[in-house]
């Protein structure tokens, strides 16, 4: 139990109700895009998404009206570019219709289907059919793919859409780096992915995963055993924040759940071993009831680390009342089909919990649109929501 309530530990966060305007206003949304999403470092993938030379991933970023090519070069470096051909603006890589498109070009070159212009993995325009028919002022060297700043940390791939980011990735992350120092993300890279378009503000999505007040009610179905919990280890790192959930008990050991857990312990709701030591800052007192963490890397990347598993959520802004939710669950790769089965059981239960979590989001957006209420009441345990409001609001209000 925290000895002092969270808000008493952080009086700078205030304790008044927070306004609803940030969740509804088109103008506020436009400012968030301009002042936050087009300037800050954004998490767009893992190194394991594009492990080999010539591998690429194209990620749609609707808020920026772009799709980003992340490509691994022959020199093993990852580079990022806008997916726009310098000829007449076609998408160099045709997307498959999903939010992410994966592929590999053995020669590590990217060719646009429209007229066969070819770029290498460093973005250089290396081939233009009928180049001699272009005017003499046309210079291939000035028409490479438009680059985007990219960097990596702990296996995560991050981009920055600003022409000149004001901070390096490490400077942006600040205390988050030390917080996770030593957490073995790269030992658990087998990822299960779900996504959905949700008609709510991106911040509503993040709010939902940053408290445990909802566990006894929302998760009465999937996590009945986790209803008795407490929170601790609240920490702020500038705009970033972290909180840990301790659970008194686990889900009841039902037959299929138990069989799955015995083959491969992949569920946060069942007792597991501790395959690795946690970083110092995570479960600092080595309490046996520690469950998992909720950490938010500003603006929109949630990293939930546990023992032997971790999962992430992202809510990408699309409009003031629309977002894209991506949920990913990371485990050590199975080595047998029975383990794959066991993982699929655990991920199915977690997927269902996420369906429970996302259930209230559109109703909330619709109800707030009524204009009937102008503020939201937050309790002490909802300190992460309060920190989120302050962090976003300070950036929107600043120049």
């Amino acid at each position, binding site marked *: 139990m925290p000895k002092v309530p969270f808000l008493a530990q952080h009086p700078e966060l205030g304790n008044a109700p927070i306004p609803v305007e940030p969740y509804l206003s088109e103008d506020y949304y436009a400012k968030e895009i301009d002042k936050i999403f087009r300037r800050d470092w954004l998490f767009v993938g893992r190194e394991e998404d594009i492990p080999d030379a010539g591998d690429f991933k194209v990620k749609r970023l609707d808020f920026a009206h772009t799709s980003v090519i992340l490509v691994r070069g022959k020199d093993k470096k990852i580079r990022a570019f806008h997916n726009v051909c310098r000829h007449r603006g076609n998408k160099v890589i045709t997307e498959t219709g*999903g939010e992410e498109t994966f592929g590999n070009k053995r020669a590590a070159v990217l060719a646009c289907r429209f007229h066969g212009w070819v770029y290498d993995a460093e973005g250089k325009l290396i081939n233009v059919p009928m180049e001699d028919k272009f005017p003499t002022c046309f210079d291939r060297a000035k028409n490479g793919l438009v680059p985007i700043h990219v960097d990596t940390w702990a296996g995560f791939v991050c981009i920055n859409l600003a022409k000149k980011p004001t901070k390096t990735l490490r400077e942006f992350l600040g205390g988050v780096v030390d917080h996770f120092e030593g957490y073995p993300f790269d030992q658990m890279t*087998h*990822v*299960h*992915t*779900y*996504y*959905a*378009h*949700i008609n709510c503000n991106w911040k509503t999505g993040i709010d939902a995963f940053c408290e445990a007040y909802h566990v006894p009610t*929302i998760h009465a*179905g*999937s996590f*009945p055993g986790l209803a008795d919990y407490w929170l601790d280890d609240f920490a702020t790192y500038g705009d970033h924040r972290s909180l840990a959930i301790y659970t008194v008990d686990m*889900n009841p050991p*039902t*037959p*299929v*759940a138990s*069989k*799955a857990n015995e*083959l491969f312990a992949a569920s946060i709701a069942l007792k597991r071993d501790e395959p690795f030591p946690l970083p110092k800052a995570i479960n600092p007192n080595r309490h046996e009831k520690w469950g998992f963490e909720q950490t938010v890397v500003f603006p929109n990347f949630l990293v939930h680390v546990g023992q032997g598993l971790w999962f992430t959520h992202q809510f990408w802004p699309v409009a003031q009342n629309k977002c894209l939710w991506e*949920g990913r669950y990371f485990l050590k*790769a*199975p*080595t*047998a*089909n*029975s383990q*794959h*089965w066991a*993982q*699929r*059981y655990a*991920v*199915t*239960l977690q*997927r*269902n919990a996420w*369906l*429970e979590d*996302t*259930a209230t*989001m559109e109703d909330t957006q619709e109800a707030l649109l009524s204009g009937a209420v102008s503020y939201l009441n937050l309790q002490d345990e909802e300190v992460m929501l309060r920190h989120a409001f302050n962090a976003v609001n300070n950036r929107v209000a600043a120049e």
Partner: protein
Amino acid sequence: MTINLPEGFEDLAPFAAKWARATEYERVAERRRSTPEQLRAFYDALLNRLPDILKRVDAYPLGKVEGADRHLFHMALSLAEIAPHIEFYKADPNVPFSFDEERLKGHHCGVPD
């Protein structure tokens, strides 16, 4: 299409056409169009044979279960899909109080089912 099962698993034959589905999307769809009684009957029958099925599929390399055993594996994955509905949701074919499952996309991971 007949779903053949390996010898010794004839008891599961009545469930094969409905539950030997190759993708999560199909297994979710079957679950949602089931009655509570269908879910219970399938759960009881599969749970009884689960250890045998998992032992058989482990004879294959990861992701490469073949032939009639693959149908069994898909049925085991259907059990994984419906187990929470029997073990937690009181045989409700839907996840109670949830986001519209039709709109959920994914799932993918590196291992084929």
